[in-house]
């Protein structure tokens, strides 16, 4: 069953076409991977789904459980159960890890806050009172982002490169978290450059130049990505775009 659908989404930023007639369906309770070279439009797709500012003015539509969410604010989408873990999560001066996670875990108690920290491999005793500021390492911040997502128990989560900056051991915790989300029935859309992470997905979508180039079973897409995307087959497309030609 489809939970989220992008319908012919075309988004221009600074006069540049970043998403190009993009249509994708995501299935309820499944783990999807969004792959593609740098600049393909993966994060942009996530931002459009979450409704971040600067990403709300586009052609086409985004349907969640069959209804358009195009006009909804970020928090309205979040209250429908949609959330996003940023590729580079924001830092908050003075805000404790506890308060940050608790904010997402509205209906749960302190035990939940501790539980999700342990699930991402961080010791609550060491981290709860620290600030979500620049003193956290990149990997720690990413894991706290994921902990906050787990605390929220969303229906659909966008994970933008959950593995970037994560060490080998902690990567196992990320995989555990994916399993947990799957068990909870959460639909996952994760963006990654890692084949190891890709293997945890059930379906893959390959993006290039804001277009859907290929989709299907993970093995098939992974092969295609490895063999045809490096070097990129679509350079031609990019060049034509740069010259201002209509590639639509």
């Amino acid at each position: 069953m489809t939970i989220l659908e992008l319908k012919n989404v075309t988004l221009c930023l600074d006069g540049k076409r970043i998403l190009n007639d993009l249509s994708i369906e995501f299935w309820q309770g499944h783990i999807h991977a969004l792959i593609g070279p740098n600049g393909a439009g993966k994060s942009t797709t996530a931002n459009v789904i979450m409704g971040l500012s600067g990403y709300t003015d586009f052609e086409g539509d985004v349907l969640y459980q069959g209804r358009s969410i195009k006009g909804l604010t970020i928090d309205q989408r979040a209250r429908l159960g949609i959330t996003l873990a940023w590729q580079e999560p924001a830092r908050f001066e003075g805000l404790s890890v506890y308060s940050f996670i608790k904010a997402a875990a509205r209906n749960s108690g302190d035990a939940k806050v501790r539980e999700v920290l342990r699930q991402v491999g961080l010791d609550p005793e060491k981290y709860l009172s620290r600030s979500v500021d620049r003193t956290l390492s990149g990997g720690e911040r990413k894991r706290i982002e994921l902990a906050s997502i787990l605390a929220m128990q969303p229906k659909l989560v966008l994970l933008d490169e959950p593995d970037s900056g994560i060490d080998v051991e902690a990567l196992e915790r990320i995989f555990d978290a994916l399993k947990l989300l799957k068990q909870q029935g959460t639909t996952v859309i994760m963006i990654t450059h890692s084949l190891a992470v890709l293997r945890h997905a059930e379906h893959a979508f390959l993006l290039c130049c804001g277009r859907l180039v290929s989709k299907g079973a993970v093995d098939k897409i992974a092969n295609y990505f490895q063999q045809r995307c490096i070097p990129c087959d679509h350079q031609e497309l990019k060049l034509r775009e740069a010259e201002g030609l209509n590639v639509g």
Partner: protein
Amino acid sequence: MSDNSLLQAMYQSVGINPHTLWAQPDVARIEIHANQVLGVHLVHGLEVDARQLDDGIEARILVTKGTRIAKPIQVCFGMIPDNGVQRIILEIVVEDDARAGVVAHCTFPNARNIRHEMDARLTIGRNAEYAYIERHVHGAEGGVVVIPRSKVRVLEGGRYHTDFELIRGRVGQIDIDIELVGEAHSTSEVAARVSGSGDDRINIREVAHLAGAYARGVLQTSVALRHRAEAMVHNTLRASAPYARGHVDCKEIVQDQAVAKAVPVVEVTHPKAHVTHEAAIGSVDSRQLETLMSRGLSEDEAVDLIIQGLLLKGRSGSQPAGVSYQADVLSVTSS
């Protein structure tokens, strides 16, 4: 109102159960309502000499040489009525090698037309440590003019930390003025965290002079403004001795029609001194806002949480040995 019920009302307004406090013999207390000293409880090494003025109190507080007062001294002052004047003249001397921390609860919960002035003179002795935290609770209407002025001298090797906090209730008008001189090997930290709304007016002037070799100083100001509130922050850090190190930090978040100004001045007159400054004024960071909103917080809730973080910053940071919020103060304040 009886003295006792005045005291109860004051403590209640700052969220403290006085009985918990009074039951602890090792916690020193000074309780002042308007121009009356309602209670004093001393511990070894602490001397207090107070006299009544028409409109306030004049007091001398002494921490004798080498004394280390383990638990922060609790000072409660303010006024329960909605109008009046309270003027406090203080001389605080922390003698050589002594150590003390003070948490001052300053409360004007019903204020409509109140003026509170504080003139403090402090001397922190050689290798002595003194930490002072002043927490204000005001009424929802503002209605208070608060004018705290202090002149501080931190002698060789001394450590001084002061923290002014008004994050609940309305400011009204506040004029903070601190002048500080740090001698050789001294450490001084001056922090102010204020949230203003309505037509609150906030003026902060902090001047520190690092006059001795290896003196260190940090001036840190965080202000959050809403509605038509205005804030002006003048922080000056002067370094005139070798290896003196200082930093001036000012952060202000403005929303609505609020206006914030910051003038950090750094002045270095010795080639081996080093002073830095940082001033940031802006609205709430959009990425922070969007992150919290993507977790289901409304925009207002997200803004509140971000501002709370900004204002509470510094608390978790460099906590001097004299006062430990977590352990000591909280154990006293929990009701």
